[in-house]
C-alpha cells in the first residue's frame, strides 16, 4: 500500500519518536541528582546551573537527599554531559596565536567538553559532586570541579541548623549562589577566544591547583558562615584533587578562604548579601621555593531571585578587590611595582519564560576589570598583551537561551569589549582593537 520511500519516512519518524520519548521520559534518562530524588531538574535548577532554594538546600545537605531510605544510593548516581560549540571573533586571530590545532577563526569545537559525574549520595550523610572532564583545547582528561561533603542537620536555639564539611579543589565550587566565580555568569565560555590578561586569584586561577578542607553552617535558613583552608595539590592529602592537571600555580603554605552571607526568602522571592575572600601565597612563576607573592582577595556579592510557574528573574553581582604583594616576583624583575591592586566587577540580569515547548531566556551582563599600570606584568604581546601596561578591560556579555527540555540548553552568546587589556584600539601594540575580540559563541549543552 505504501511505497518504499514513504515507509522509510514512517520508520524514521517512529524511530525519532521513540528516541524523543526516551529522551523526555524522566525515568529513563535524567541526571543523577534527579534520579536520586525522583524530582525533575526544575526542582533544584531554574536553568542550570542556577539553583533554586531547594537546590541550595540539597547542595548544603551534602547531595544526600534521596527518595530511598537506604544508606547508600543504588544505582550509583552517575551522570554525563556533553558540550559542543562554535566560536567566531570579529577579526581573525593572527597566525600562531590561536590554540594548537585551531584556526584563526570560525572554530567548531565538538566536543568542547565531555564530562562524567559521580553526583549524589555515597553513604549515609556523605555525598559528592565529582566531575571528570575531557577538554578539547587541553586535549586531555582531568579531575574537574570536585566537592565532597559530609553534612548533618540539627537545631540551634530551636531553629534548624545545617553543618557540614567540604573537601574540594576550587575555591567557591562549594558555594550555592551563582554570584561567586565558579558557578557564576556567563556559566560557560569559549575556550578558543582571546581572554583578558588579568584576573583575581580567587576568580578561577586555582581550579584543580589546590585542595581544601572546610567547615560550614547555615542557621535558620538565614545566616551562613564557612572557613576552608586550601593548600597546593602538588603533594600530600590534596594531591588526588589535581589528578590529570599539571600544577603551574604553586601555592605556598595554607590559604584560608572565608564565606559569610545573609539570605531571606519570602514566597517566590529570595535575596542574599554576602562576602567571601581568600589570602593566597604563590611562588613566582617557575619557582617552588623561596619568597612567595601574596594575593589578598576581598569580595562582596548579592543575589535576587524570583521564581514563579512561568516567569523566572534573577540578578547576580559581585565585586572582588585584590591586593597583590609581589614579595617574590618584584625582586626577580617580573613586575614593575612591588604592590598592585586589581578590581573585578560583574553584574547580570537573567529572565526565563517557561512555556509548553520548554524554556526561553536571556541575560544581560556587564563586566569590568581595573588595576594598576604595570608595564612588566602586562607587557605588549600579540593578542594577549598590553601596549599600555594596563589590565583594564570592560564590556558586555549578552546571552539568549532555549531549553527544549530540562537537560538540554542551547545558548547564543555575544561578548562585546569596550576596552581590552588597557585600550580600545591597538591594545596589544600589534594593531589589534578591543572590538576585534568581540566573540560570537554558540553552545549546545546536554546532560544525561
Amino acid at each position, binding site marked *: 500500500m505504501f511505497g518504499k520511500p514513504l515507509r522509510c519516512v514512517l520508520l524514521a519518524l517512529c524511530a525519532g519518536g521513540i528516541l524523543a520519548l526516551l529522551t523526555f521520559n524522566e525515568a529513563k534518562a535524567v541526571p543523577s541528582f534527579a534520579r536520586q*530524588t*525522583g*524530582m*525533575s531538574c*526544575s*526542582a*533544584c535548577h531554574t536553568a542550570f546551573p542556577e539553583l*533554586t*532554594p*531547594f*537546590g541550595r*538546600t540539597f547542595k*548544603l*545537605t551534602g547531595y544526600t*537527599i*534521596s*527518595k530511598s*531510605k537506604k544508606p547508600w544510593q543504588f544505582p550509583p548516581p552517575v551522570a554525563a554531559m556533553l558540550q559542543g560549540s562554535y566560536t567566531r571573533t570579529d577579526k581573525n586571530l593572527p597566525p600562531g596565536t590561536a590554540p594548537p590545532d585551531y584556526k584563526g577563526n570560525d572554530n567548531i569545537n565538538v566536543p568542547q567538553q565531555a564530562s562524567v559525574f559521580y553526583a549524589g549520595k555515597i553513604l549515609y550523610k556523605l555525598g559528592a559532586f565529582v566531575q571528570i572532564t575531557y577538554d578539547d583545547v587541553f586535549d586531555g582528561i582531568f579531575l574537574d570541579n570536585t566537592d565532597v561533603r559530609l553534612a548533618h*542537620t540539627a537545631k540551634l536555639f530551636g*531553629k*534548624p541548623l*545545617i553543618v557540614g564539611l567540604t573537601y574540594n579543589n576550587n575555591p567557591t565550587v562549594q558555594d550555592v549562589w551563582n554570584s561567586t566565580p565558579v558557578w557564576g555568569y556567563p556559566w560557560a565560555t569559549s575556550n578558543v577566544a582571546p581572554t583578558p590578561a588579568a584576573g583575581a586569584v580567587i576568580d578561577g586561577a586555582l581550579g584543580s591547583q589546590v585542595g581544601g578542607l572546610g567547615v560550614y553552617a547555615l542557621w*535558620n*535558613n538565614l545566616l551562613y558562615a564557612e572557613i576552608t583552608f586550601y593548600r597546593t595539590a602538588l603533594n600530600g592529602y590534596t594531591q588526588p584533587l589535581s589528578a590529570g592537571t599539571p600544577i603551574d600555580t604553586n601555592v605556598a603554605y595554607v590559604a584560608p578562604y572565608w564565606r559569610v552571607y545573609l539570605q531571606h*526568602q519570602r*514566597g*517566590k522571592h529570595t535575596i542574599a548579601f554576602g562576602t567571601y575572600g581568600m589570602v593566597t601565597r604563590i611562588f613566582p612563576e617557575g619557582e617552588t621555593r623561596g619568597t612567595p607573592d601574596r594575593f589578598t582577595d576581598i569580595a562582596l556579592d548579592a543575589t535576587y531571585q524570583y*521564581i*514563579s*510557574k512561568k516567569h523566572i528573574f534573577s540578578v547576580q553581582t559581585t565585586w572582588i578587590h585584590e591586593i597583590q604583594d609581589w614579595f617574590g616576583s618584584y625582586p626577580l624583575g617580573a613586575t614593575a611595582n612591588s604592590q598592585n591592586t586589581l578590581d573585578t566587577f560583574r553584574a547580570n540580569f537573567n529572565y526565563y519564560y517557561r512555556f509548553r515547548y520548554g524554556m526561553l531566556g536571556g541575560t544581560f551582563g556587564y563586566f569590568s576589570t581595573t588595576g594598576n599600570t604595570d608595564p612588566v606584568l602586562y607587557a605588549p604581546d600579540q593578542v594577549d598583551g598590553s601596549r599600555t601596561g594596563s589590565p583594564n578591560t570592560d564590556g558586555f556579555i549578552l546571552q539568549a537561551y532555549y531549553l527544549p527540555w530540562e537537560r538540554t540548553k542551547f545558548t547564543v552568546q555575544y561578548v562585546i569589549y569596550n576596552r581590552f587589556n588597557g585600550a580600545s584600539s591597538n591594545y596589544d601594540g600589534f594593531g589589534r582593537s578591543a572590538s576585534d575580540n568581540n566573540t560570537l559563541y554558540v553552545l549546545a549543552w546536554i546532560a544525561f
Partner: protein
Amino acid sequence: MEREDFLMKKTVVLFLAAGLLVTGFWGAGTGKCADERGKTIFDGKCAMCHGTDGSGNGPAAAALNPGPADFNTASFWGKMSDARITEVIENGHGSMPAFTLSSGEIRAVINYMKEAFKP
C-alpha cells in the same frame, strides 16, 4: 399479549438492572483509579519532604526551614483551600519547588491528601 408485555417489561428491568450494575462498578473503578493515581504522585514527589504519612517529616524535612507542612492538622485544612494548594504546587513556596503536574494530577493529589490525611 399480556405474557408478551410481561416478558418485555422483565427484559427492560433486567437490562436496566444490568446497566446500573455496570455503571456502578465503572464509577467505583474510576474513583479507585483516581485515588491510586493521587497516592502514586504523592509518594513519588511529595513524600520525600512531607512524609508518606503527610506529617511533614519526610527524609528531607530536617534540612528545610520553614519545615514541610503537616497535612494531618485541622489548622492546615482551615487555611488552605484547594485553589491555594494548587497554586503552591504549581509555583512552589519558599524551599518547596514547583511541580509540573497537569490539572488532573493536581486534583488527584489533593483528593488523596484529603482522603488520607484530613482529620
